Each structure stands twice: as C-alpha cells, then as structure tokens.
C-alpha cells in the first residue's frame, strides 16, 4: 500500500522509493481516497517517477484510474533537454478533448418533441459508433492531410466549418507546432480517411443540457455564461488516425529496446532530443491537429442541426473553449524559482492556466482559462476556471473517472431498458450500440461533484458552473 502524506489541502505526497527520481503527488480528498481502489494507479504514478528527466513530481489527479503505462489522470513534466517523451504518457487517443459551446436559448426550446428531433438530426449529421465514418465523402486527400498538419483547425475553417472567432477559443488556437505529415504512416492516413467529423465509440459523446448552477457569477459574466442557458459539449479525439500514430511509435520504440530497464514496458519512451523522440513529437502534433479538426467539424454539423431544427443561427452557437486532455506540450514553468522549459505530459488531465498566461485570449487572460470537466451522462459536468497552480504544472482533472469497469457496468444493467431508465432521469439518450450505453451508465463513474471539489480544495481550478445533461448521443 502506498504511503500518502498530506502536504496541503487535498494534496498528498508519495514518498520516493527506490528507483523513483521524484516523489509522487496525489490530488484527492479523503472521501475519494477511501472509496476508490487506488493501488494499481498509484503503482503507475510511482513507475512514472522512474522516467529520465522527470521534474518535481509524478502527479495523479482525483479522477485517476488504471491506464496504459501512465495512469489516466496523470501529469508528468520532463526536462525538455535531458528528459524523455513517452507515447504512454499521452495515450492512444492523441488530443482526445472536450469543447463547450453556448446556445442563446433555454430548455423551453427543446420541450415537447423538439429535443428528440434535434437529437435525431445530430445523429444523422454526425456519425457515431463503431465503423461510422463519413462514407458519402471522398475522404481526406494527401493535400488535406498536409493542410491539417500545417494549419491545424484553420483547415476546417477553410472548408467553411466554423468561424474565425472560434480560433481563439481553442487551446493553442487549434494548432500544435511541429506537426508534419511526412512522419505519418499510410496506415494511419487510411484509418483516418473518413473519420474526420465523427464521434467514435467508447466514452465519446455529444451532449446538450442546461447551465444548472452558477458558482462564480463574475467569471460567468465575463464569459457570458448564464444560468438556465443551453450548452453543447463534444468529447472526441483523433480517432483511428491518432491510435495508429501511437501504435506505430510504440512498435518502433519496443523494437529498439527503449523499454529496457523501465519498471513497465508500456512506459517505453525516447529522449526528447533524439531522432526517435523528435519523430514522435512531429507525429503526435499532427494527430493533435487532426483531433482539433475533428471536434471543429462535429461542432459545425451540430450547429447545422440547431439551424435545421430550431432555426438558431450557427454563429449564435458560440464556442466557449476547447481543451486537450491527452497530449504532450512544451511549456515554460517555474522550477525552484527559475523558468524551465519542460515537456508536460497530460494524460487524462487538462491544462488549467490561470490569469495572465501568455497564450490565452484577452478575456481568459484576465480570468484564467476555462477547464472543462465532463462527468457522466446522467448527473452533471462542470465548467471551471484555471488558477495556474505551479505544483501541477497548471493542470487539473479531466472528468469524473471510472469507478466501475465496463464489464461490471454492462452486467449490472443487463436485461433492463437503459434508455427508458435514462429518460426517467430526464435525459434522452441516442446511441448506435446499447452495449456502449450500458458500459457508460452514470453509476460506472465517480461522482464528478466530488472530483471537482478536490480540484478546488487543492487550488488547481475553481468551479464556475454546473452543467446538467438533457440530450446525449453516445457511440
């Protein structure tokens, strides 16, 4: 059992053990620690602390759970010169992320059968579920791929899929520098060809609901977020394209024995400055730009659905923010009083820059950036504001975190009408696969309210608003 020592509110340290280059750090409340089985993920936190070049802490967020090498809900910053970069620290779904848009209407407009009509229209326009691509399109050409890599989300804008003002409401303005299509395999391109603008399966979704509660009125006002207003939340990533980028790199790294001497082969990594390390970053950045375009294209189609069903102008569906929660980024942080260039791996963790951060647009530079924390499809999601806490390299949690395995959730709902159950909870769910919905039922997740409370207590981000789902599309 890992020994945890409370060093600040909702902040625990794991002592350094043999082989660990830095201690571990866990953001959690006593309630979270007592309810969830942390042993395996904390073992992973300790394993990450073995990686060359890791700085200060190997960090676990309150939504931590067992992941691939790194825990999901893990943050690790590596010295940009002497450290390593690890695909397991990013995850298979490169730049999986969430975007939140606001709709200038209330629940009233989706009463009666309007909600179902809207859901049906989105379902028609946005492919979701296994094998659902944009089959009617020609698919992405080599030229398109090159543009996606080099232009980021501007590629989607050039196709008419969005508005110029969307750009500054996306993390890194929807573009990760260093992307280069020449580092991508044909297999990855083939997998991604008809997947741009698709949700996929698993825990990805499109959700519409209402802003149920405002916690910080002054921030909400600055962001023009109002109680009772409708919101749109989109959760998806780089689809098969990104998965293949990760797999190609892992295969190369494994074949070159980079996993030797690591406590877990899934942590396989290469020095950031090495050719293999640089190759991975080029490829990862390309997949990240694909993911930004994916979420942008989905938003475009959903805007169209709002126009078709509710006659709401697409431009009025205002993007508030888009965050990445599976990514490695070069950032400068203050370490021991000095600025240091580090490669921050956030896997199942969200950047949470506070006021004054250079990259942010003028509004967010004043307030801190929006941090989006989807919960489950029944209870709630949260909108937070980042505080730029240096102990976590300005990072926060990314969701509620699973409390129950997929198989357990599926079994416990077997034979029950899950769609009817959800409707009685006030949520209409539409999905390609009933099994996916059974795996994703609200009780499969921790209570997101408890998770964001831990984040707030640890001073990583503050709660701005609570979001209540009403219409959900699952893969």
């Amino acid at each position, binding site marked *: 059992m890992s020994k945890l020592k409370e060093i600040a509110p909702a902040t625990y340290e794991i002592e350094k053990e043999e082989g660990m280059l830095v201690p571990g750090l866990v953001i959690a409340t006593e309630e979270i620690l007592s309810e969830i089985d942390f042993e395996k993920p904390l073992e992973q936190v300790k394993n990450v602390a073995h990686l060359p070049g890791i700085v200060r802490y190997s960090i676990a967020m309150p939504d931590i759970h067992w992941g691939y090498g790194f825990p999901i809900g893990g943050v690790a910053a590596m010295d940009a010169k002497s450290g390593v970069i690890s695909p397991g620290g990013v995850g298979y779904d490169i730049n999986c992320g969430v975007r939140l848009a606001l709709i200038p209407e209330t629940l009233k407009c989706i009463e009666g059968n309007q909600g179902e009509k809207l859901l049906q229209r989105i379902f028609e326009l946005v492919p979701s579920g*296994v094998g659902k691509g944009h089959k009617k399109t020609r698919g992405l050409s080599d030229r398109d791929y090159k543009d996606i890599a080099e232009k980021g989300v501007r590629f989607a804008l050039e196709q008419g899929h969005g508005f110029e003002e969307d750009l500054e409401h996306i993390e890194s303005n929807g573009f990760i520098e260093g992307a280069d299509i020449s580092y991508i395999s044909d297999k990855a391109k083939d997998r991604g060809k008809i997947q741009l603008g698709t949700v996929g399966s698993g825990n990805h979704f499109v959700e519409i609901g209402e802003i149920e509660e405002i916690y910080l009125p002054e921030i909400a006002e600055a962001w023009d977020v109002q109680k009772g207003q409708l919101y749109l939340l989109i959760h998806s990533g780089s689809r098969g394209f990104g998965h293949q980028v990760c797999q190609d790199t892992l295969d190369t790294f494994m074949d070159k024995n980079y996993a030797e001497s690591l406590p877990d082969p899934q942590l396989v990594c290469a020095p950031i400055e090495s050719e293999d390390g640089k190759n991975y970053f080029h490829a990862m950045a390309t997949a990240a730009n694909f993911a930004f375009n994916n979420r942008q294209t989905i938003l475009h189609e959903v805007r169209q659905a709002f126009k078709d069903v509710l006659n709401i102008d697409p431009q009025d569906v205002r993007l508030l923010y888009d965050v990445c929660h599976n990514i490695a980024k070069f950032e400068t942080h203050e370490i021991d009083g000095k600025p240091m260039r580090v490669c921050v791996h956030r896997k199942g963790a969200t950047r949470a820059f506070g006021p004054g951060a250079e990259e942010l647009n003028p509004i967010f530079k004043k307030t801190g950036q929006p941090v989006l924390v989807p919960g489950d499809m029944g209870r709630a999601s949260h909108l937070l504001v980042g505080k730029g806490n240096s102990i976590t390299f300005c990072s926060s949690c990314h969701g509620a975190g699973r409390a129950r395995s997929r198989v357990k959730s599926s079994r416990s709902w077997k034979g029950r009408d899950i769609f009817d159950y959800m409707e009685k909870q006030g949520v209409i769910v539409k999905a390609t696969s009933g099994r996916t919905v059974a795996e994703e039922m609200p009780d499969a997740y921790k209570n997101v309210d408890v998770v964001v409370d831990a984040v707030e207590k640890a001073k990583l981000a503050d709660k701005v608003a609570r979001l209540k789902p009403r219409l959900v599309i699952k893969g």
Partner: protein
Amino acid sequence: MQGMEEKRLFLGFSVDAPWQETYPKGRVIEESSRHLTLAFLGNTSFEELKKKLNEDFPKPEFSIGPVGMCNEILFLPKMKPRVVAVQVDWISDGNVLENYHKKILDWLEELNFSVDRRPLLPHITLARGPFVEKEWEDTFEPFPAIITGIHLFESMGNLRYASLWNIPLTPAFEEFEHTADIAFQIKGENIQQLYIHGALAMSFKYPPFFSYLEQKEIKGLNDIVQTLNRMLARCDQEIGCPFKAVSYHGKIEEKKLLEWEMIVDV
C-alpha cells in the same frame, strides 16, 4: 441398468459465446442451457452410470476447452426443419476432437449403448420451431464460441437441460476487471495458441474482428501484440473497430500452460 429412475441423458460440451441479445421468432433456448451434443444415451439410470463415469470415462487429450467460430446458421433436419442451430467450425485441432468423439462412442458401446457412428456435425441449437428461416438468416452474424466443459446433461423438457456430471475444461480466456479498458487472462498450450485465443477473446467483444486473423507463425509476445494490432488497424479501416489497441502489457508466464494478461485499450 433397471430398477432405478431413468432420465433422458446425453453427453455434450457446455459452451460460452457472445450471444445475441434478441432473436427472431422461435422458442429460444436459454443461454445457460445451450450446448453442443456429442452422443445421445436415451433413457438411462444416472445412478448406475455415475459410477462408470467416475471410473473410466475417457479423459480428453486437451486441457484447454476447444474453440471455434459459428459461421453458418442451420435449420435441422434439412428436410423438415424443427430447430435453428449454428454450425461450429473448429479452430482447435479438428482431428483431436474427432478422435475424442470416437473414444466416447467406443466407451458407450462398451457399456452396451447403441451409438450413432455418423460423423459429428458440431452445432449448437438456439431455438425450436415455429420460426421463419429468413428472419433468422437475415439477423445472423458469425460469432466465436468456446467450450467450457464436458457434461452429462439431462433433458428436463421445455427446452431446459441440466448438467448432472462434468469435467471442467480450462477456458481459452477469461475476462477480468479493468477500470477503463478490457482485460483478459489468455491461456494456451503454446505461443501460437496464445495468439489465436487473444484474437478470439477480442472477437467475443466484437465478432467481426476474428475474420481479420493473420495466418502466420508467431515468434513471441511482441509479435502477438503487433499482429493483433495489425488486425485491429485493418478492421478499423474496413468496417470500424471498437478497440484502440492491444497494449504491451505484462509478460508470458509459464505455468502448467502459457498465460498472458491481455489488456485492450477501448
């Protein structure tokens, strides 16, 4: 074997498969009663037979339950169908299974049972009539199946079958708890079998996956992982795939059998 209570008995394999949640019209057999029949014994006293079963019932050469794909739907008997069944195409060595079937028939003959020596048509009955063949054909998709034990079954009537005696077989894989992904304990007599059983485990979650199996000689764990991931990539590209990847997790452990914890990122 007279003077004792007689029951309608037969020998068969218990099976596990990713059964469909709903079926077309028909008297559908409960999942727990589905089986693969090896030999009918007719009305027999179980008490008399039990002693012989425990004494010298032929032990199988295989320790892991055979595995197969149910690729075809059957309506049996062909002339005037009364049941809907699926044919099992063995992935495990068919000759070994055929020999074992023969041994069972020999053993029954020694006990003076009259046996049917026609070649076995391995099948699992799903439903009895009335049914509409086209409805079943239209909704059928091939799926994998694993054998979990050898049983003496009793026909209880009303499409229910109870196991009276059994020899459990080690399943080719077992799912275990993993919070975010899906995880299986894979078992095999050799590295090749570990690969096949890994692919089969994934097919239990997504049956079309097995049709992407690569026929190749496997050289080690990394080769298993990379081959399964190649299958996955092809599957995703052609028809979509619910899995992101098979991870480089764990090592192959040599116990009585080879064992590997396979984690599939979803």
